[in-house]
């Protein structure tokens, strides 16, 4: 199956060590930009109590949830440290700063 890459904007739309959201019919996705200019996308929904991860402090390749300080790996979506839980990660393509996400689950059922 080929991947549907959906353009979401430019890397410079996201502050360094920050995040922006994209709205989808199945909920918000948080797109992060680390200090090293890596870009990651995960569900904007903390596995603990649903906190908006996009609002957390970004450090290294992790984010700390603003509600109860769970630390979520941006690479794996898994909670770090003693906490257990996981969020969905979404593949991101960074083409010279132009960002795309792969929204398989949405399927963008345009063809119908």
């Amino acid at each position, binding site marked *: 199956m080929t991947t549907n890459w959906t353009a979401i*904007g430019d890397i410079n739309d996201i502050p360094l060590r920050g995040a922006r959201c994209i709205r*989808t019919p199945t909920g918000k996705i948080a797109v992060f930009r680390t200090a090293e200019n890596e870009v990651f996308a995960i569900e904007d929904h903390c596995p603990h109590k649903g906190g908006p991860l996009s609002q957390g402090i970004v450090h*290294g390749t992790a984010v700390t949830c603003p509600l109860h300080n769970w630390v979520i790996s941006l690479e794996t979506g898994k909670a770090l440290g003693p906490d257990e839980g996981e969020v969905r990660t979404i593949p991101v393509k960074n083409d010279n700063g132009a960002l795309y996400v792969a929204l398989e689950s949405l399927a963008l059922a345009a063809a119908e």
Partner: protein
Amino acid sequence: MTETALEKLVVVGNGMAPGRMLEELFEKAPGRYAVTIFNAEPRVNYDRIMLSPVLSGEKDYEEIIIHGDGWYIKHGITLYKGHKIVAIDREAKTVTSDHGVTESYDKLVIATGSVPFIIPVPGKDLRGVITYRDLDDVQAMLLAAQSREKAVVIGGGLLGLEAAAGLQARGMDVTVLHVMPTLMERQLDPAAGYLLQKAVEERGIKVLTKANTKRIVGEEKVEGIELEDGRIIPATLVVMAVGIRPNAGLAKEAGLAVNRGIVVDAGMQTSDGNIMALGECAEVGGMVYGLVAPLYEMARIAASHLAGDRRAAFAHSDTPTKLKVTGINLYSVGDFADGDGREEIVLRDATAGIYKRLVLKENRIVGAVLYGDTGDGAWFNDLLNRGTDICEMRDTLIFGQAYQGGSPLDPMAAVAALPDDAEICGCNGVCKGRIVGAITSKGLTSLDDVRAHTKASASCGSCTGLVEQIMSLTLGDSYNPAAVQPMCNCTDLGHDDVRRLIKAKKLKTIPAVMQELEWKTSCGCAKCRPALNYYLVCDWPDEYADDYQSRFINERVHANIQKDGTYSVVPRMWGGVTNSRELRAIADVADKFNVPLVKVTGGQRIDLLGIEKEDLPAVWADLNKAGFVSGQAYAKGLRTVKTCVGSDWCRFGTQNSTGLGIRIEKFMWGSWTPAKLKMAVSGCPRNCAEATCKDIGVICVDSGYEIHFAGAAGLDIKGTEVLGLVKTEDEALEHIVALTQMYREQARYLERIYKWAKRVGLDEIRRQIMGDAEKRKAYFDRFVFSQKFAQVDPWSERVSGKDKHEFRPMATVGFNQAAE
């Protein structure tokens, strides 16, 4: 006669190397020799290395004397000052001075040092052209500097740059000419040379590289320098500091083997069995030396041989170079040229001005260049000289000793392994041996004692950990360094150390803090970053650019995040006072944005809960229009000042408590504090505003204002402590502001005032705020200064467009685009 029984030792030269040799000799073989010294300079032995501080005015000549006249008398030395030896008669075993004195010897030591190299250009003999070698040269420079005119230093090496810095410090307009593309190319690679040039230029010294001197211009006196490219640089003083060469002329005339220097074996013996040579004039193993450490080593070897120990042998070791210019840190050692089979490890931090480069060969350090942060120089040098295999720590080697965790190098072992002359405190030049010596000889047991006696770690404090490790090593179990709770897993430093070092090292950005304080993570964590951001905002209010990405979401969007991801908004109501117009505006906002809950808070204001993030700017815009500003109900900063109605209305009121509360709030709003700061002013001891469980509270009484502090009514419940009683409202404000500033400067991030007060001591706080008017005024002034940058309403700033992206989704995808 006893004198005939003594062997006659004659020393030609009275510099640092023969001085050290004689010291060692008198210890090893006291009374064995009758010593005669001929010194071409008309003075005693002084520390030539310290000439630069004399030039710059940081030291006097008297302070750099190594051996005063008394020393020569005590050891029965005949010292001929200002006598230059012009001939050696090896047959007759005599030497003769330019003043005609002839002295015979059994053993002769030649220590004639070096002579400055003079570039053979026209005009080199003009008046005003001098070299930089001895005290006479320094005095000539000082005399010339009185004119405060232009000086040119030819040579951008160690000596030239020190001369330039000294002359500049004395008020001259200085240009450095250097023939190579980068400064100090023998000790530094091009990258470090570039950083050095920037630093030198920032001090106001001009630097011209690739500058070839064609001639020195002038009639009788120097007037300037002409370069090969035709440029003319005016100057009334020209200092030639292009290098030195061994002063071996005398030895050569006497027929001794001379190559670059006087050839000696590893025992400092020349080709004549009765003559030794040492110091800069000597060549041993094909090398000549100009730095003090190997010269002292030669002195030790020569003394051993003179004392009869023939086994002592000189061994080459690399000696680090340091530039003695205040404020410029650089360190280089060994060989750092590129080459086959060599690898390098480089660390750069442009913001912090740091460059480190290690050159490796077969897993061993062969060279190191450090610029900016030279703290690990001694350690690298030690690894280099020991030929330590660095394979195991290769990944973290460049970060220095502090990063070498794990088994092979526990920090204690590393400190234990440092030699006694390893420099521990760079600020005060204190080596390990001196610290150990002071601890044992003076019976020191506390860090403060060690600081007082040795000055180690007494300046910037960055070596405190090392000093404590040395104390542990020396005192064993009897010394227990206070366990410090690290800020977080990114560092071993506690909050207090970090705060102190931010000030001491003038660290003004988060990356600078992490670099200089050796953070273990690349960009910190959610614990340390907000703390560092606060410390920097507090310490450098005018210079630090607040880092929003290091703030908790509430402070980033000026509202309180709720469990469902919506926000609550609290406008400021000064002193809890409002009116119908304001209430109407709040009601309108509640209607317009379908606010699910409107609630009165504990701090006498109104909370609008359940607002979507995207709506925040519009909500603020409407509230701003009605005259509201942010209540900062989210901030680690000033929250509310709760009041009662006071003497204006209440039959018991003693003072205008409402007015004072409003005045305090208007004066202090916008200020960031370590943790939230809630206040209250009650108009009488009945205390309706509940001032006695606040961070800071005021109880108005007939005679004035009783200031309270350090209360709590949260996780802990605690009544306030009394700070003191003041008579007027102005005084009340000044005391409260000063107390707040003291707390801002000293507390750890997230530490409420009651916890800070318990740690610091109530009496100490009272002493500083109530008892010391000068201190109080200084705290007050610093707070006022910082408010200039803090009292910006974040709402209006955001409404006017700052960081708009924060409130909008980046993209909306998947909704019906297909239908289009």
